[in-house]
């Protein structure tokens, strides 16, 4: 691990507490992991600490209601350790789900109270580890996860934290080892969704779908968990080109959990892929009026721009920028996703590169951090510098059309047309609808490289 790029700075911004799926899958991934960890933490807390009646009851449906119930519990009894721990987890979930950084401070305070009540409690430490993941302090998360596993080797949740931390830090082999341990301890929903993600990272999209289908069957009885697994399944199916199956998965997810933003974004992507751009815009406008979430706003802006509605697109992008400004103001750096956003929609390529560097520093050797930095360098016209990073990003053979398209542009920019053509073909064959924003440019590159472009890459 390279230490030269690391500082002690507490990083953070984008709520990723686990498999950070790239851009489009990101929202779904964070939501699913949030819910899974919420469930896991709830169960862990319950089995770990006896006499926790407030946790024992079936949890209320919405995150807000759950938070309110827990706040009432700790107000009634400030010594209620399990409720403080669960509250820390609930606030963390809420911060991730809403991308509103206000809740990180609350999570921090709740976990501090729990730590005061019983120093060294493993559940509290697990909550802290999850918060560290969300705040992008992956090293702290790995340290805490390691301490928990040392004391309790059967904590599947702690193994999960270790998997996530190793993935973010780019230690994929270590992550796979940890995952195997996790699967031995508890081959449930959380382990299966991580299995799916690691398979996808290693280019096994079919295996990823299979793992999620297993998770779907395994978690059929659990509401929100099942819904988010279905959303991830929808994403994986969509990437494989199975649009009808993907739509069915999203619909099932929304039936279980009507407000699941990730499933709505997935639905919008499908609509756009099938040519119904206006329908997609309608879905996203309704969603972002309710939850002004950056990933949804970015997609909305891109679709509006393709429709020639530049003013409205600029409005959507301005909201993304404002959210990023608020996150920075709250002491949380916005990195990976904002780096890509700045490269694609910003007007200052150098600033985008700076964000890309930060992303890389927080996640040294993570393939998507390498991709983000390479892409910002490409947009700044520095393809030669981007080249080694891009190769690093491709090292796992990940089947991700956006990643492959980025690679194609970088290789082409550096004069490696042969490699560029191979990457672009890979992107086309994986998922030609990978990004409404990039598809026209992908078409132009295909024409330049003499590659047959699909209909999806036609000019808007």
């Amino acid at each position, binding site marked *: 691990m390279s230490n030269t790029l690391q500082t002690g700075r507490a990083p953070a911004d984008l709520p990723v507490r686990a498999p950070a799926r790239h851009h489009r899958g990101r929202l779904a991934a964070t939501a699913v992991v949030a819910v899974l960890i919420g469930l896991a933490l709830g169960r862990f807390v319950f089995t770990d600490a006896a006499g926790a009646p407030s946790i024992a009851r079936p949890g209320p449906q919405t995150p807000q209601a759950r938070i309110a119930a827990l706040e009432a519990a700790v*107000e009634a009894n400030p010594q209620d350790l399990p409720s403080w721990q669960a509250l820390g987890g609930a606030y963390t979930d809420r911060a991730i789900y809403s991308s509103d950084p*206000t809740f990180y401070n609350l999570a921090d305070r709740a976990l501090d109270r729990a730590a005061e009540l019983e120093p060294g409690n493993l559940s509290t430490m697990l909550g802290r580890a999850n918060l560290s993941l969300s705040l992008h302090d992956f090293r702290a998360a790995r340290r805490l996860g390691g301490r928990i596993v040392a004391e309790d080797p059967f904590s599947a949740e702690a193994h999960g934290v270790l998997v996530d931390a190793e993935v973010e830090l780019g230690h994929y082999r270590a992550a796979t080892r940890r995952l195997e341990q996790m699967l031995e301890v508890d081959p449930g929903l959380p382990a299966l969704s991580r299995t799916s993600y690691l398979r996808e990272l290693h280019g096994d999209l079919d295996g990823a779908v299979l793992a999620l289908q297993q998770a779907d069957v395994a978690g059929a009885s659990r509401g929100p968990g099942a819904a988010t697994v279905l959303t991830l399944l929808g994403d994986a199916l969509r990437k494989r080109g199975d649009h009808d199956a993907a739509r069915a998965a999203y619909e099932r997810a929304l039936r279980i959990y009507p407000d699941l933003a990730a499933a709505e974004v997935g639905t919008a992507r499908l609509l756009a892929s099938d040519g119904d751009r206006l329908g997609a815009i309608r879905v996203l406008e309704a969603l972002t009026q309710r939850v002004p979430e950056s990933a949804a706003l970015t997609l909305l802006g891109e679709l509006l721009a393709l429709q020639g509605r530049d*003013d409205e697109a600029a409005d959507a992008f301005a909201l993304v920028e404002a*959210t990023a*400004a608020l996150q920075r*103001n709250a002491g949380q750096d916005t990195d990976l996703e904002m780096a890509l956003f700045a490269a694609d929609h910003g007007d200052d390529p150098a600033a985008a590169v700076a964000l890309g560097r930060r992303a890389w520093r927080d996640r040294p050797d993570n393939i998507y951090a390498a991709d983000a930095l390479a892409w910002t360098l490409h947009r700044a016209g520095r393809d030669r510098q981007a080249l080694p990073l891009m190769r690093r990003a491709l090292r796992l053979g990940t089947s991700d059309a956006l990643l492959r398209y980025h690679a194609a542009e970088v290789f082409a920019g550096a004069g490696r047309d042969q490699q560029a053509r191979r990457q672009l073909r890979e992107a086309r064959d994986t998922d030609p609808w990978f990004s409404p924003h990039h598809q026209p440019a992908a078409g132009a590159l295909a024409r330049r490289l003499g590659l047959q472009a699909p209909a999806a890459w036609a000019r808007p």
Partner: protein
Amino acid sequence: MRRLAGVALGALAVVALLGEPAAAHPLGNFTTNTAAAMTVHPDRLDITYIVDLAEIPALQAVQRADADGNDTLDAAESRRYRTQQCATLADGLRLQAGGKPTPLAVERSELTFPPGQAGLDTMRLTCALRAALPSPDGETVVALSDTNLPDRVGWREITATSEGMTLLDSDVPTTSSSGQLTAYPQDQLQSPLDQRSATLRVRPGPGSAAQTPAGLGNALPGGVDRLAESFTALVSARSLTPAFALLAVGLALLLGSLHALAPGHGKTVVAAYLVGREGSAQQALGLGATVAVTHTMGVLALGVLLSVTDAIAPQRLYPLLGVASGLLFAGVGLLLLRQAWSARRSGGHDHAHGHEHPHDDHAGAHDHVDGHDSSHHPRGLSWRSLVAPGLAGGLVPSPSALVVLLGGIALGRAWFGVTLVIAYGVGMAAALVGAGYLLVRARERMTRRVAGHRPGRLVRLGQVLPLVTAALVTTGGLVLAARAMAGA
């Protein structure tokens, strides 16, 4: 001196405990918060409806209202936006008066952009709404349901007061706990307010039930007078200049003395006690001071308790305190009755049946009257015996004092509230002492006059008065206790 320092430290601790409100949005930068402040008038209902949009929704709103796309709202755009929004919001408020749906009309609207975090603006829309109410003959039920912005996350607040109408019953507080969405309670480990409906019962007639700080709702017993109401309004004035503070303290003094002179709370009983026991002017002072000190401590303690915990319900506490106070009085009265009875018997024997030994009787009376404190003159009042009636008189915190204190706390001016409550107590003490002194003097003069003209009567008066006052104190105490119990 040390005790004084202790008190000062205690007051500081109270202030620190209650903390200063801050303007950060309670649920974060994505929230849209609303507050509906209802005021019922005899012929109409006014609602001030405020929408406070945090940074992100404010930006979204500006984008929608910005017709010419220059990213700012000019006067015309702003006017169109607030007019449209207020009309929509008025529609979303479902109002029923006397069971009939009643429409709300927009009277005025205002739009401002208070600066928020990260150099972004927030947005504050104020809609003044009005509905005509059919002039009610008797009680009317007014019900409001806020259906606006159902899927936006945020603070939802409703408050209700009345002017020229009596607010008999309300399930919402009368004052805003967020300073009308400008100062949200800062400690965030508590659920945000989610009040989306209100039901009020009103009746023609003056006054309303207390300007109760939010969260207390109907906690306080009704009937806080109008003076207290306007006083609380004064406390909540935005700027606190020295002149204004002095005025407020003066008013608190006046309010306290008025409260002390108003009927109820056993003041008459205390007065009767003084007269019957032939207390001195100094002892009148002592009694007044005891009542005031007990009362002030009680108010402060209850205020702190109510501010830090929801565990105690004041509506349960009040009857209990009332019963305790009444029983204490009754106990004092019974004691007096016994003393008066034996004193009368002994006095009677002195004249009618000369064969008995006066000395023995005297000793017996002495024993009964001042059994615990024989160093005092039997006919006067011992300082210690003042404590029980003093306690009884001050035990029940006056709602208006509590309202003033809680009003100060709710506004983040706890220290000011404490000052005012102390001033209130001083006013109360002054009035009680004054009244007590007057009573003592009046008794002395009456005694002298009667003694001058008809000495025989004096003896009879001297025998009857203690008995009458003792009976008065006993019944008074029992009535107070019974009333408190009935109110429970």
